[in-house]
């Protein structure tokens, strides 16, 4: 078989496999969007197609997207999620960018121990922290009178603390892949250590920083366990709030699906505009000498 034909066939096979993966990934999302356009009853009875009007024509239940804001306080949850995840992302990125740069470039007493400790923290499952943290939150309030549980900053603190080590670990690789000579050249050109970071290392690590930032935002956006335990009615995030559509007195799966669709939109938009960086970031090697 000639070479180009072989390549053609492998390409086709790879494409088919990729399409299957894509389908598999899109299936639940499609299901979600589709269900959000059906009536509550039709979801409950497991109807396959769209809902119908009384005279038998198919009906798209756009009202779900209006009712979801009324049935529960979805606007508040959206706001809470944006504040908490946004703040977490900013704080974790600031800390981890600086920390990972210094870990990748400078040797100081304890730098190796510090790197390894960061990695070690990742081996403990998050759920192990849940009860101790809850008790700490409550005790802290008892002792100082400062409210922590149920506040924005309480959850932001926890999220930042969780995501910073992970981000440091990822970003360290990005900084390490920037050729040393670039920074040396900048130092000779007249940069102080901080200017080297600002003018050379930071711009070159941007793809990695953005990719990591999005990852943090996504993970925080989806986080349920801590948010459930550590927020209250005023600071509830989307994953917590969305559960209220299914309650003791009514099961509004239709509204839940609509809310889930709305909650997915910011992520889709984020991905859409930044996919260039995400791909570059995930494939590392973003910086070549």
């Amino acid at each position, binding site marked *: 078989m000639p070479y180009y034909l072989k390549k053609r066939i492998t390409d086709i096979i790879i494409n088919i496999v990729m399409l299957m993966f894509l389908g598999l990934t899109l299936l639940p999302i499609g299901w979600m969007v589709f269900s959000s356009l059906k009536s509550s009853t039709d979801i409950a009875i497991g109807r396959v197609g769209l809902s119908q009007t009384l005279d038998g024509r198919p009906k798209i239940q756009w009202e779900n997207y209006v009712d979801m804001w009324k049935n529960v306080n979805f606007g508040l949850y959206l706001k809470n999620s944006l504040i908490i995840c946004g703040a977490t992302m900013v704080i974790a990125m600031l800390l981890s960018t600086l920390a990972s740069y210094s870990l990748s470039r400078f040797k100081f007493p304890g730098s190796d121990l510090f790197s390894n400790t960061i990695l070690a923290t990742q081996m403990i499952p998050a759920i192990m922290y849940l009860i101790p943290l809850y008790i700490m939150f409550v005790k802290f309030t008892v002792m100082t009178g400062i409210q922590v549980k149920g506040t924005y900053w309480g959850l932001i603190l926890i999220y930042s603390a969780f995501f910073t080590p992970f981000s440091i670990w990822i970003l360290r690789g990005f900084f390490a892949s920037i*050729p040393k*000579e*670039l920074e*040396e*050249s*900048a*130092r*000779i*050109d*007249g*940069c*102080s250590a901080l*200017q080297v970071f600002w*003018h*050379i290392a930071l*711009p*070159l690590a941007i793809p990695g920083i953005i990719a990591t930032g999005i990852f943090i935002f996504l993970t925080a956006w989806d986080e349920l366990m801590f948010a459930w335990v550590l927020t209250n009615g005023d600071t509830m995030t989307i994953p917590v709030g969305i559960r209220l559509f299914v309650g003791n007195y009514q099961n509004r799966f239709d509204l839940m699906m609509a809310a889930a669709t709305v909650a997915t939109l910011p992520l889709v938009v984020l991905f859409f505009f930044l996919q260039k960086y995400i791909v570059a970031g995930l494939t590392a090697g973003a*910086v*070549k*000498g």
Partner: protein
Amino acid sequence: MAKVVLENVFKYFDDVVAVKSVNLEIKDKEFVVLVGPSGCGKTTTLRMIAGLEEVSEGKIYIGDRLINDVPPKDRNIAMVFQSYALYPHMKVYDNMAFGLKLRGLPKKEVDERVKEAAESLELTKLLDRLPKQLSGGQRQRVALGRAIVRNPQVFLMDEPLSNLDAKLRVQMRAELQRLHKRLETTIIYVTHDQVEAMTLGQRVAVILNGELQQVDNPVSIYEKPANRFVAGFLGSPQMNFIKGVIRKKAGKYSFEAEAFTFVVPPEVDGLLAANVDKEVIFGMRPEDLWDVPSSTWLEEQHRFNIKVKVDFREMMGSDINVYVKAGKDQMIGRIGTFADPKPGAELDLVMDLRKIHFFDPETQKAII
């Protein structure tokens, strides 16, 4: 524009001694080449001058200022890296302007200087490109331009031509020499390429195992190598080395190898007195071992005819390198292309006795 002085400089990496007791004074506006085999400590020396590597012991001065503890940015030097180290996220213009902007020069002056340097290096059309959109030779010129605009006291260059193809390298060598004339700046240039060292350097410093072997102008280094290492390192093919003994008979000194003996010409023999009846290493460059027709102009007392057996030959285009044997000793000679030495055949060659060298086999130092 300043001299650079290294005083008894050492560099240790843990237990590796990368640079050992280097004393070197580079004059103002001088073009000095540091040359030596891979791993001998050239780059380390240069990086210490740049301030990228701490000096373990000793002192380095730029001008009259001791700079051991001065950070690189305050040394007023520019460095061209082997990998060029162009900032990938900046256009050519910004790459060149970066150092000037950091120093807070007015925008107008930055612009003038960058444009002027770009003009002289034929980069004007490329100013809007990113480094990845340039060819190797163009990148190299941008790296030079970035150094030039800064107008530094000292230029440091670490094998700047080694990533270029042979033809471009020759071109850039000429370019660098013109540049040095025009800029009138001190240049310290590191290379492992002896041709670059010979053609570029006003003075050449040969380094081996972190130690400075010899510093002199290229011609002197080539003609009067201080030791066997320098003699062997410079010149291609390498100098022939043959073991033998110095004898004195009837007031005349002669050199006895296994297969041949010749009388050392009287100009040089005074230096041999201390080595009579001792083993020495005789050295002779391939280009001083000729075929008979090419050497007819050489006076009788400087000629030594030797019969050898041809091993094999290398056609070099302009001439032929013949690998021959005199007894067990191997030698390389350089002969004209009209000769046609067949492997295994006998061949008559002529040594130019004005160009002979002797080395002490123990210290490796040159006797003559």
